[in-house]
């Protein structure tokens, strides 16, 4: 009995002392969730083929921009470039951004029209996820150096996240929140005014 008592004391002491073993910090929920979503997208959903193509176009634009700048200066990509070369590079990003904005405007217009008509196209969340990937690429590109463009991209990111998370059996309340948010931030008017007049310079497959 003495032995059991001693064992119990040790077990109790050990359980208390061991709380310090690899003591975790608070769970980084949002950081991990963002990466989980990105990883799941990368793990090839059928609709992701289109996104990958769109991302490839954007990255190609970035690559062309860098290459152009490098050719004109004769130096590596990181070398400071003359303002004319910078403009040339930025133009490539702007072309990619314009093409994206045009597609997003078409998507959001269609989304609102469907809501007004009482239709519930189940493809909208998937299409929003496609656009969300490109939004985040653009937010990390020089296209977002312009504060107005960055603000617009951030607004679009929020709206697209909300649409991408719409449940299959959505309630009116779910969609009302999205449209109210769009109206409060004047997302569609800002989006339309950010798209230059005339034809969109780059066109890729899958535009909605």
């Amino acid at each position, binding site marked *: 009995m003495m032995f059991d008592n*001693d*064992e119990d*004391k040790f077990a109790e002491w050990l359980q208390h002392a*061991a709380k310090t073993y*690899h003591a975790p910090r608070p769970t980084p*929920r949002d950081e*991990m969730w963002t990466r*989980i979503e990105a990883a799941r997208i990368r*793990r090839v959903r059928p609709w992701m083929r289109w996104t990958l193509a769109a991302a490839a176009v954007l990255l190609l634009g970035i690559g062309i921009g860098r290459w152009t700048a490098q050719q004109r200066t004769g130096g590596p990509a990181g070398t400071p470039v003359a303002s004319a070369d910078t403009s040339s590079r930025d133009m490539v990003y702007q072309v990619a951004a314009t093409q994206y904005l045009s597609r997003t405007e078409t998507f959001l217009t269609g989304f609102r029209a469907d809501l007004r008509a009482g239709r519930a196209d189940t493809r909208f969340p998937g299409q929003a996820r496609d656009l969300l990937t490109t939004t985040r690429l653009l937010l990390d590109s020089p296209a977002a150096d312009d504060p107005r463009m960055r603000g617009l991209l951030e607004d679009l990111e929020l709206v697209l996240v909300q649409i991408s998370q719409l449940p299959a059996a959505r309630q009116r309340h779910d969609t009302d929140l999205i449209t109210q948010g769009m109206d409060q931030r004047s997302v569609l008017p800002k989006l339309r005014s950010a798209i230059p007049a005339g034809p969109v310079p780059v066109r890729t497959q899958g535009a909605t």
Partner: protein
Amino acid sequence: MDERDLINRVRAGDGIAERALYDAHVDRVYRLAYRLAGDDALAQDFTQETFIRAFEKLDTFRGESALSTWLHAITTTVVLNGLRKVKRFHKREADLEAADGVTGGPRQAEPDLKVRLRQAIDALPQGYRTVFVMHDIEGFTHEEIGVALGVETGTSKAQLSRARAKLRESLADFAGEWVT
């Protein structure tokens, strides 16, 4: 919303339900991953992989156990396999070698209980360490551990008992702290 509804909504592709399921379970998954890995970056990787697999395989979940138990089974598989892969690159290997000198020996250069305890737990065989961490630190029951690790409840109890015995031997220098 009860768990069955939540699972059905996730299976139907409901993004909000996915996040709700994640929020309901992520703390315990991350804590377990962190306790076993001892490294934040690894713990995050393991947690992410756990949920990615869980969402992929949710259709195979039959509801015979609680969803948390099923998730913890995935977690331990991911963590233990992951740790095997990174072991040779991980600093912990050096710690294990250092801990070899600690086991059963007289009190040596490292007088700090926290460090000695960590070294002693790290030096446990993986099966003992996993059961000890899950039961004595994270509060899992032997039944939960049995399902998560795919072993009998009795095996879990035996491994815990052996783990404690080894730790008691390793920490003999500190006997005064629990005897009093």
